């Protein structure tokens, strides 16, 4: 069990890691040659000019300046927060879809051995298709979809692509978890004349929790990445993906600017992982290991 003090220790070490990274960055910009380290015509270490590697305080200062020089432009931090919230929301929808789809696939594969043999290779194969390739397809299919009042919107395409990336760890993790109970336990339930459904509820689902939690966390990270990438390839406005592309163009004259949405992405990733950890806290009793008698 983690106590309060060990929590602070973990946070402390986390901050220390960040500080260390910042230290290395600043040290290199200070010591490294302006033109970078070039070996045989290949740049192995980047240039250290203020444009290529802005100081960390420049990145942070930029957060408190307006986004553009136009009048009425909001401060950078508020624009980034807004975009982060948008991306987090879309990623959340994608994550939920992925959880439902991944769990259903895992249940199907656990229930029918033949389904596992038929579906599992396709699940693995699905992850070799690059997101960039399917994004326009999803968008086109979606725009053709109209049922009554409901019309498909671009953010749904993005969420769907995020879920495409995120369902994979869930279905694999859940399948391993559902199949994790010992024969011992399965036979015990069989001796109680419990059918598949009740064995699932009383044994397989609780036993799958230790396998499911890392899968959910991985899926959350995948959903965030999927959302950012899909925002770019579908061209959805409002999120971090588009902001990254737009601000990268400004790097030449405003080196701190492209870093703002990157900080936003880090924030979204931390939030997503944190939310999944909260789920883990509520399921703590299912993570007790069985000790051999």
């Amino acid at each position: 069990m983690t106590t309060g003090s060990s929590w602070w220790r973990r946070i402390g070490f986390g901050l220390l890691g960040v500080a260390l990274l910042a230290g290395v960055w600043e040290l290199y910009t200070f010591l490294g040659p302006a033109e970078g380290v070039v070996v045989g015509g290949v740049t192995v270490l980047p240039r250290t000019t203020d444009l290529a590697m802005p100081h960390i305080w420049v990145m942070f200062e930029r957060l408190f300046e307006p986004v553009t020089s136009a009048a009425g432009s909001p401060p950078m931090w508020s624009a980034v927060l807004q975009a982060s919230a948008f991306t987090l929301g879309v990623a959340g929808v994608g994550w939920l879809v992925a959880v439902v789809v991944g769990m259903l696939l895992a249940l199907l594969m656990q229930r029918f051995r033949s389904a596992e043999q038929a579906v599992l290779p396709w699940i693995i194969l699905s992850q070799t298709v690059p997101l960039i390739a399917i994004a326009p397809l999803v968008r086109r299919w979606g725009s053709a979809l109209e049922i009554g009042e409901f019309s498909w919107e671009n953010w749904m395409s993005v969420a769907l692509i995020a879920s495409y990336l995120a369902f994979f760890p869930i279905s694999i993790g859940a399948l391993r978890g559902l199949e994790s109970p010992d024969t011992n336990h399965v036979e015990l339930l069989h001796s109680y004349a419990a059918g598949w459904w009740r064995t699932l509820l009383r044994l397989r689902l609780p036993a799958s929790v230790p396998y499911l939690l890392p899968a959910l966390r991985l899926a959350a990270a995948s959903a965030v990445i999927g959302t950012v990438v899909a925002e770019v390839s579908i061209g959805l406005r409002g999120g971090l993906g588009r902001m990254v592309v737009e601000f990268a163009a400004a790097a030449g004259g405003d080196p701190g600017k492209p870093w703002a949405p990157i900080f936003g992405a880090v924030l979204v990733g931390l939030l997503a992982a944190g939310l999944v950890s909260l789920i883990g806290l509520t399921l703590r009793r299912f993570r007790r290991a069985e000790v051999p008698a």
Partner: protein
Amino acid sequence: MTRKDSLPVTDAHAVNVTGVSRIFSIKKKAAVTALESVDLTVAPGEFVSLIGPSGCGKSTLLRLIADLDQPSAGTIEVFGKTARKARIDQDYGIAFQQAGLLPWRTVRANIELPLELHKVGTAERRSRSTELLELVGLVDFGDNYPDQLSGGMQQRVAIARALAESPNLLLMDEPFGALDEMTRERMQNELIRICADTRAAVVFVTHSIPEAVFLSDRVVVMSPRPGRIRSVLPIRLGGPDDRSEHIREDTAFFDGVSAVRESLHGTPDSGNARGVDIR
């Protein structure tokens, strides 16, 4: 809690095994005969141990009675029903070598698991589990989780769980096999007391000769390849009140141990008896 209404009528055996064989096919042509034409009856309330070296099919026989496996030939009746019907009717409770407790459930919730699965009401479940916690001497541990318990305590929970539905038959597959010698003897004493209280018939698989002799009304000695019953030895150590610690040093006890040992090591090939604990 009252005994089940379906108390066996006197003419029905608790277990009746007739001409049972079990052949495992490993590859296409290779087959292993785990059991060959086994006959065995267990009377209601009787304690019968199955003993024999590894591979003699004693666990297989127990699994067949529990309907965790089906015989290749022959019939098995439990209280006059098919083994399958008896399993569905919950006529037996079962305990394995591993306690097999669900780690995410408290001790009490583990004991209540079979009751919960068979839709027994919360209040009745609670009173039954309290009763069983008292029976196995774990009243103070109801809210603990299995990983907070010693091996012996876990096994006691498993026995309580097996008794939850007041079965008239207990099937036990080396339940004390993983315990140290001290705990083991204490658990044997407790099992005798529990059996006297519940008056359930027991089929008990073990490797240990003294354990079989100490616990049983009859000891069934089995031999391997193919698994057969070599002999059935009646043991007369008296009722549960007489069978306390001192009986382990009694001549009747030693006579029983020698008889079982001789039967195990006897004809035709003494080499077969390897794997039996002579403790």
